[in-house]
């Protein structure tokens, strides 16, 4: 994903410098790209989430309206989560594009903040500009927990794919969050 509003696919095997394919459908810079086994998901500042389905040969473009900061697939591959600059996370049905849930409460207006889904798709998490990490219940959409990570913007966030384990980066710091029961080197409540 590039600020020149393209997603470029390179072939790592051939070591060719030119991209295999350039997906230049976006009208503005690409802020986030995720890849599943047969899909490419891109969020763009033009307010659209585009999903290139290689298997079906289709491009699905979902209009959100405000610049997308981060997108991700759910673990079950049925939904896509899109964070946008209107301080909202939206859970969209992948197939139909319907809105399954909206999550608000955090602040995301200027930074390119990450959103995550927990390891079992039970919670939706997002970094925030107020120094917290917010987690919502995926189904109910209610704010489940707020982690005070730092005083400044939480720049980056990523969730462990299989374990309840969270990495958050803020102010030159990377913090690892584990659940409370986790003993050995856990440094915070999960």
């Amino acid at each position, binding site marked *: 994903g590039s600020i020149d509003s393209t997603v470029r696919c390179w072939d790592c095997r051939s070591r060719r410098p030119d991209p295999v394919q350039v997906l230049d459908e976006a009208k503005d810079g690409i802020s986030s790209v995720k890849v599943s086994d047969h899909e490419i998901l891109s969020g763009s500042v033009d307010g659209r989430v585009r999903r290139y389905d*290689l298997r079906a040969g289709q491009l699905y*473009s979902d209009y959100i309206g405000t610049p997308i900061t981060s997108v991700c697939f759910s673990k079950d591959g049925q939904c896509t989560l899109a964070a946008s600059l209107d301080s909202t996370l939206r859970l969209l*049905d992948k197939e139909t594009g319907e809105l399954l849930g909206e999550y608000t409460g955090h602040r995301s207006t200027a930074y390119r903040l990450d959103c995550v889904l927990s390891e079992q798709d039970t919670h939706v998490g997002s970094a925030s500009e107020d120094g917290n990490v917010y987690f919502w219940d995926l189904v109910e959409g209610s704010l489940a927990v707020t982690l005070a990570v730092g005083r400044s913007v939480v720049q980056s966030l990523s969730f462990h794919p299989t374990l309840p384990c969270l990495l958050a980066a803020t102010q030159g710091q990377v913090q690892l969050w584990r659940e409370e029961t986790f003993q050995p080197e856990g440094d915070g409540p999960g």
Partner: protein
Amino acid sequence: MAASSSDGEEEDLVSYGSALQPLQEGERIKKPVPLQEQTVKDAKGRYQRFHGAFTGGFSAGYFNTVGTKEGWAPSAFVSSRQKRADRTVLGPEDFMDEEDLSEFGIAPKDITTTDDFASKAKDRIKEKARQIAGVVAAIPGTSAFDDLIGPSKITVGVELLRKMGWKEGQGIGPRVKRKPRRQKPDPAVKVYGCALPPGLSEGSEDEEDEYQPEDVTFAPKDIMPVDLTPKENVHGLGYKGLDPSQALFGASGREHLNLFTGGSEDTSNLLGDLRHSKGRKLGITGQAFGVGALEEEDDDIYATETLSKYDTVLKDEEPGDGLYGWTAPKQYKSKKRSEGEVKYIGKILDGFSLASKSSTPRKVYPPPDLPRNYRPVHYFRPVIAVGSENSRLQKALEESTGKLESDTAQQSRHALNASQRRERLGETSLKGPAPSVLEYLSEKDRERLKEVKQASEQQLKAKALPQQSQNSRFQAASPDDASHKWQVLLREQLANAGSSDFKPFARNPEKQRRYESFVKSIKQGEKDTLEHCSDPSMTEWERGREQEEFFRAAMFYKSSNSTLSSRFTRAKYEDDVDKVEVPRDQENDIDDKETAVKMKMFGKLTRDKFEWHPEKLLCRRFNVPDPYPDSSIVGLPKVKRDKYSVFNFLTLPESTTPVTQATHEKIQQSNNPSKPKKPSRWDVSDKEKEKKDSISEFISLARSKADVQQQPPAPAAAEERETGPSESPATEVTNEEKDQEEEESRPSMDLFKAIFVSSSDEKSSSEEEESDEEEQTTTSVVDSEPTKQVDLPGSSSSNVQENVAAATDPGVSLLPAAKQELDAAEEFGPKLPPAFSSGRFCRLLIRKEKHRKNREKHKTKKEHKHKKEKKKKHKKQKNKGKHKNKKSEKDSSSDTSDSSDSLSDIDTTGLSPKELLRR
């Protein structure tokens, strides 16, 4: 071998040598080996073969082959990394055989005396002899051979002398006290060139003997053989030629100080070249290369001044200066010299002496005093008084700077525009072509622009007239009063404009020239501009027309300033190719999506689905079968489209509105030849059509529901909603007028409009049609009729679809009203509902543009009807109100946009068949 005494039985005989071995019985006497069969063997018993090399034959390598029995022993690789430090330089000895190093080889390694231990005297004597011989001999330099044949050992006589205390270089005899000088050489004698009494050996000392230590004895001087050779060459006086000993051996560079130059003059007179034998003048004194005999200083050209050439230790004798025994310090000599001599450094030619009186010093005149505030930089500041006689010059200045000098004085830094600042700073103008915007437009567009311009300027003029009349009250009211006002107007504009590269008449150079002179004269504020810049051969009428043209062009230049135009670039596509590659499927207008997002109706409304062809390799890497195995397309499929179709550039819903017959025909004309073969986006697949239908279906469904729900409120109320809370119909009319005015005084929009040429104004033209139904009833009917007709069969027959068709019926009349509403919205900009986002607004603008353009197109014909139309539109708007407000209750914030969106969607479905028809 003495073999004679063999066999002798007597014991008293003396025998020499060794006896041969006694012969055995019956053995034959050995034959001596013949000479040619005799072989020489070396110490190891190898045969020595005579190769004629070096010492005359040796066995090379292993029996004259290679190094060892096994062949060349390849040298083992040694990493130079570790061995780098102790890498040795190989000498020739490393390649020699051992025989060469033996006693008789070419490099014997026996013990020899080195130079350090050899007698020094040998060298010195030899050197002296050689020097003498070298100078005296018939062939200069032949003494070098003496070195080769001279005895290498010190003779017995020399050895004896040494034992008696003699040292090399001294004369032979008892040591003596230095006597006072017998004869002082008289300077006068020198002047008159008489021969001096020969001081021979001591001559050089003559003048330096003032300082006489008492108890110092000196060895007698070594006596040099006197060689009186006559001068038999034709060289100049003092010319000696290149000294071979100097040139060949580089010796006696140490002599270069020439301490006794002056004193040795007389000696050299007599002794001639012998002077060299003393080793005193062994530099290249001759100056064989064209340097005069006087230039003694050039002696030192090749000499190097090192400290070793000076005496640092007082020794018994000073070797090398030729004055064995005592060398006077230099300062005693210089004491004697006159001041003039000190000044003149150099050799004085024989027979000349230095002048005792120096010449009068040259008089020096001091430079004039500079004024206090003088700055040594010259800068040009031509200040030209405004006058008739130098108007030409002023004009030139004005052209170069783009403005009058006085202007710049008045303008503050902040009042300048970018180009003026640029000129002040001396920067170059923007890179690249900076033609005017007009050049990018076609001829037709230019015409159009001019028309627009004319209209707007007439208004402007009308406005400016009252003001101008004050300014130009001194001007006589004349038939061409208008043109004067033009001029005044123009002058103001042009004063700000930089040097113009605006060439509106570039196709007609003659006309362009005239135009330029016209602009020039306008800039200077001249009257009767056209009289002298127009072609005299033209008729009055033509002249008048051209003047008009020039005015308009000059006025237009305001908006297309060079700073703006330099931002444009040349067309990427060739002009004659009127097809462009455009993605077949565009993401639809975001307006409806916007509303859908607002209503949180994600799903179908916000989703666009396109056929997308992934690269084959990408599929392989994703381990996914290629969904389109036999297509060569990558990415979104593209189609060739009309280049000037506005749909290529705007994301409008497809197939917007009916087209007027006129434009329709025009488009057909222009596109006909290429039409059949070109695939178009109207050739959409059924599936896609269905998809679109479904969307519109959805909307219309919602709308019809709302329709049922809600009866239209009072039209007046609806109108109020649209125009604003406090607007009454009466003020609305005035507002409308204002709006119109506003639109027309803004040329930039027109410009954009003109860029999107003919084929783009389909929709707005239809609106126009409808609004002036009186004139064009026929066409509009024709337009709207087929729309409906086609619509029905084109759509999949469902109830909802009929609903849509029904909706189009009001939709046709609805359109102007919608537009009207948009106009109103634009007019009362601040009161816009917050729901209008930027994207929405863009679309508004586009629509309005179209509308205006259309109006402008019709303007020439029916400008007088314009206001009437407007009013009519307003009436319609009232009718419209109910439709519009259908949804307002449901969602008041997104009301207007939503309804208009649905309208446009209806248009889409309703008119795409229409487009098909056109095809």
